[in-house]
């Protein structure tokens, strides 16, 4: 990337971040709720983007980890734990469970792996619904408190939105660090060619398990924010549908692109709102839009941009070559 375009990108990022901070100040309660939900779902989708987009491991269990996070936060904070302590415990649990869920991936891949993770997702849903001693079953857990952050209460929608946005910011920074570290390179090697990766000394077992564990932790973090956002959890939002929605967010946004989940979550959370005018037809329009997008660009929205940029680069390179060629001919 040239210095010029890098500057442009940084400026764009500043404008978007400032916009996300300033514009919602005028939003009503519902608008802030939707935007907070976007931030939370983006975090969960980023986790799946790591597991699936970068490391190439299919998972239909991300929704279950959001559920584990949400229930963890709901149960602990209604028992007087501070949210940050619940977060710590959820991170540890999701890391361990995600690590264990990675073991099948060492033996099976692709659609077989999808089935294994799907089974886990269903299993967790049954736990949320049936283990009433812990989760209060179908009645759910209500009156989940919103936390105080450094003494600031986040009971009102705007401060809570800032909490979600701030968390998203921190997660994004951590993710950015991870992806540009040697681990990020190893994850991509896992996706593109595990056998070659092994022959280069890359411990594919450990990196596969790590991809699952870290991706699951992000699902858990999203859940920990989800519980105080809705202030009520019951099993229904954490059924297989959520895992499928998260998968769609990753694919539509652009799997394996850092910013893919931001766009994917935006479409999944906001598009239904924008399509409200269509009333009963909205789901049809939504589905048609997704199908058309994936036919046009199987690598998602960011795939279109990527294609455009690389085409331009190729053109520039061949123009350069042609110029050099004609110079050479002129000299002869």
């Amino acid at each position, binding site marked *: 990337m040239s210095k010029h375009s890098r500057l442009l990108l940084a400026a764009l990022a500043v404008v978007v971040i400032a916009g996300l901070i300033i514009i919602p100040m005028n939003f009503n309660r519902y608008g802030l709720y939707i935007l907070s939900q976007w931030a939370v779902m983006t975090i969960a989708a980023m986790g799946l983007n790591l597991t699936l987009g970068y490391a190439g491991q299919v998972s239909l269990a991300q929704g279950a980890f959001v559920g584990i996070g949400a229930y963890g936060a709901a149960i602990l904070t209604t028992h007087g734990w501070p949210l940050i302590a619940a977060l710590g415990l959820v991170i540890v649990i999701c890391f361990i469970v995600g690590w264990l869920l990675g073991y099948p991936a060492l033996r099976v891949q692709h659609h077989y792996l999808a089935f294994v993770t799907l089974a886990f997702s269903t299993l967790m849903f049954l736990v949320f619904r049936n283990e009433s001693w812990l989760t209060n079953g179908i009645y759910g857990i209500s009156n989940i408190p919103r936390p105080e952050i450094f003494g600031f209460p986040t009971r009102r929608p705007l401060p809570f939105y800032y909490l979600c946005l701030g968390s998203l910011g921190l997660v994004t920074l951590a993710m950015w660090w991870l992806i540009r570290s040697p681990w990020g390179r190893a994850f991509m090697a896992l996706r593109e060619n595990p056998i070659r990766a092994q022959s280069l*000394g890359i411990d594919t077992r450990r990196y596969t398990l790590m991809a699952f564990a870290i991706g699951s932790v992000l699902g858990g973090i999203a859940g920990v924010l989800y519980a105080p956002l809705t202030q009520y959890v019951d099993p229904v939002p954490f059924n297989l549908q959520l895992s499928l929605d998260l998968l769609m967010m990753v694919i539509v946004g652009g799997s394996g692109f850092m910013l893919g989940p931001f766009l994917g979550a935006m479409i999944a959370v906001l598009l239904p709102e924008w399509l409200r005018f269509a009333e009963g037809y909205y789901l049809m329009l939504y589905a048609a839009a997704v199908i058309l997008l994936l036919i046009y660009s199987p690598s998602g929205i960011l795939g279109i941009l990527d294609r455009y940029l690389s085409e331009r680069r190729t053109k520039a390179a061949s123009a350069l070559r042609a110029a050099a060629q004609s110079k050479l001919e002129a000299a002869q």
Partner: protein
Amino acid sequence: MTAVLDVRDVKKSFGGITAVDGVSFDVQEGEILGLIGPNGCGKSTLFNCILGQLVPSAGEVRVDGKLVTGQRPADLNRLGVSRTFQLLQVFPKLSVRDNLILAGQEHRGSMLSRLFGPSDAGLTTTADQMIGFFKLEHLANEPAGGLSYGQQKLLDAAMAFMGGPRLVLLDEPAGGVNPTMLGDLKERLIAINRERRATFVVIEHNMEFVMSLCSRVMVMAEGKVLAIGKPDEIRANPAVIEAYLGH
């Protein structure tokens, strides 16, 4: 002196088919051993047995005197045994430089230190030296998938050397490479062999390439060693001519 690679009575069978049938040989430090033989004679299976991609049904493999039979490829690689594959095996979406950094990054420090350390694992200089050595400078930032076949072959070979290996097994490095580039590749391999005392085993069908590159040549047929010796002896060996070289 212990051999860098010592293979004793290695066997590998798949069901009723014995692909490698009791192969023994050793390779001394700094040697370039050629491995030739008709298609399906067990060369690549032998490679895979040595490198841990396959576990031999019987026999022993030693590297620098250390028993490594059945060790996982990643562990073996970190012990200093590297390889290239018969079919192209670069990471198409990573840049040429990132392919090389990736090939070296697991060779030092712990996994945790790599997470918190610099993003290039301190290997940019080494990678760029390798890029220069294989004359790929103008392509350093291009995604490897955009390179020509021959250039990808060069990158593939360069990757095998990033970890500073003791022993490199090359599976048909010359296949599909045009003659000019082939000369380049041979020159590079000889230079690395001399400068770094790296030891090679090379599977190859291009006879001219093998005979001019290798100090010794081993011929396999039907899973067994048919002959082993200097290139000239192999060329003159009647059994080899019968089985492989032709009249």
